[in-house]
């Protein structure tokens, strides 16, 4: 099993460009998450999903949109990239019940020029 797979691994964008990060999990997990990791800030939750077709805002949702059209995929979109969104993005998933741990992907390093 691949677990949680994120694509792409690296990307450089210009300010104002748009892009979508893909997260795929093969563990049949209900819950999926997008985090950003910045130096000295730890991981902060952007958006999450508790099941197919559902999404919810996390701690830092502004400037991002998400979609969960299929259970195994959770997409993170940047409509108009800004330099402040330069970060490492991590996707995670977990199964039920509520005390199951989150499994993380390898991360996507995104630079906005």
């Amino acid at each position, binding site marked *: 099993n691949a677990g949680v797979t994120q694509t792409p691994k690296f990307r450089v964008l210009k300010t104002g460009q748009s892009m979508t990060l893909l997260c795929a999990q093969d563990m049949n997990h209900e819950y999926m998450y997008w985090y950003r990791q910045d130096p000295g800030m730890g991981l902060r939750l952007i958006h999450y999903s508790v099941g197919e077709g559902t999404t919810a805002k996390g*701690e830092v949702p502004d400037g991002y949109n998400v979609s969960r059209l299929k259970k195994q995929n959770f997409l993170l979109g940047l409509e108009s990239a800004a330099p402040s969104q330069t970060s490492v993005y991590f996707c995670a998933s977990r199964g039920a019940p509520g005390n199951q741990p989150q499994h993380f992907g*390898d991360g996507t390093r995104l630079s906005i020029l």
Partner: protein
Amino acid sequence: AQRVTQPEKLLSVFKGAPVELKCNYSYSGSPELFWYVQYSRQRLQLLLRHISRESIKGFTADLNKGETSFHLKKPFAQEEDSAMYYCALKPQGGSEKLVFGKGTKLTVNP
């Protein structure tokens, strides 16, 4: 609001020495606490959680509700323990918002 504080950004010890990574939390209820580890060039992975009361790779962590702490300890550090360590809190009541501390970078010197 929930908060997780890891007071040490960097921690350096020698191989064979005891190590303790501190984690304090702010939460009025009964949280679930976790330690995640990220080795160089690897993904973040769960190390242990308080409900399991387990020892993983020689590490243990005890939840102290009185002191609101969940410190990670290992009696004899190894060089392969060098990594970033994150303490995380999950509020009770079904919230999905796992709150992370800012992390402690542990370096174990030979």
